[in-house]
């Protein structure tokens, strides 16, 4: 079975690095982005899941989420929003995210959520 592809977008390089290793160790194919713009503008080779920080440098992750959920080609990509503010759960869901994860997180919580939304 081909590996599931996860796109991770966060503006902190260390968090991005750690999540990448975590997911690769668990058998996923991982692509990362420190820039909200590239996620916003993705046109091909879509991931099976997007892990999206709610606050990308200068860009509101919720806007990216809303945009992707409104495009025909990207609307079916599951999006899990990540935020250091645990009170933003509702905001993430309002923006159309499938799920939410608060930073700092337990590895098992991340892996469970990723597995849940990439099950084919």
């Amino acid at each position, binding site marked *: 079975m081909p590996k599931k592809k996860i796109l991770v977008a966060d503006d*902190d390089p*260390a*968090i991005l*690095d*750690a*999540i990448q*290793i*975590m997911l690769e*160790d668990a058998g996923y194919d991982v692509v990362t982005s420190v820039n909200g713009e590239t996620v916003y503008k993705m046109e091909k080779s879509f991931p099976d899941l997007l892990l999206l920080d*709610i*606050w990308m440098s200068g860009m*509101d992750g*919720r806007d990216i989420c809303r945009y992707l959920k409104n495009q025909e080609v990207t609307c079916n990509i599951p999006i899990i929003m990540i935020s*250091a*503010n*645990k*009170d*933003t*759960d*509702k*905001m993430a869901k309002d923006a159309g995210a499938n799920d939410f994860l608060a*930073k*700092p*997180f*337990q*590895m098992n919580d991340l892996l469970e959520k990723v597995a849940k939304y990439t099950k084919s």
Partner: protein
Amino acid sequence: MRDLTSRREFRSLLKLQTQILESMVEGVSVYDSTGIIVYTNSAEDQMFGYEARELIGKHVTIQNTYSPEENKKIVHKVIDQLKKKGYWSGEFNNKKKDGTKFATFARITSIEIGGQKHWVCVQEDVSERKQIENQKDEFVGVATHELKTPVTSIKAYTQILKNRFQKKGDKASTDLLSKMDAQLDKLITLISDLLDVTKIEAGKMSFNLENFNFNALVGELIEELQRTTTRHTIEIKGKAPKKVYGDRDRTGQVLTNLISNAIKYSPYSDKINVMISQDSKGVTLCVQDYGVGVPKKKQERVFERFYRVSGPKEDTYPGLGLGLYISSEIVKRQGGRIWVESTKGKGSTFCFSLPIKPRHIKQQKIQLLKVI
């Protein structure tokens, strides 16, 4: 002759007192029991932007920004405190003649003039001080958020390593990393508590209100907390109605705090009881321990910000003194109540109650800020 001297003395005393009042930096005003201003010193006039004597004869409410309802409430509070303590002190939201708003810290006492009750109000402008306080809170908010970022990656790296050692069957290294992970969780709780306090102070703590399964929440958390102690057995007694209205995560935070405290403050006993009861008004949860207890006179203060029970024995317990303050804010904001019953040396029972039915809860403005 003596009469003249005493009159002269009286006049000079009066002059001196007037000089004292006029030299004061604090604004002084006197009003009668109906709220009509009968005296202001020059600091008061300047603070409110009026000409000398211009405020005299006006009603005191032109100085503040409150609605008639709010003004009534304040008057009741002041009367109550004057009876109880002999003075009232607190903050006022005021406005200048030109409408500029500002805050003062005021003290009110009462005097009699010609057999009539009057109020003396001494107040100072605290706008600048409040602004500095806000800046400080904002700074703590930014600092704690910045702390969270590296802690997130450190925790993630720790868990990756633990996972790798586990896969290799290296139990000693796995255990070591589990300990490190547990310490990181303690650090994260400290950071989260600081962040919560800045949210409370800034009025930005938000609540996701819904009907949730209270019993399931209690069960889950106790299972989790039981794992943090090998000494204590946490026992649940009683049940809540199926659905309770409130913020599930925040309510869980209160419970976690009460049980963690019970564990922390009862190092020599082995039992913690969690008792749930319900009546027509709501659900009550109590956490009982057989630990060090809280002395009677300190019981009221344990819910204050930064307050920690100090004493020769208690000094050895670590913490920021924020947990119970945050818990009490969470409970109060959901329309509930929190209290403690305790005997020093015998143990404590901390309880909170929440209403079952949905009620109107004033939602604070939710803002997505990078700092919080």
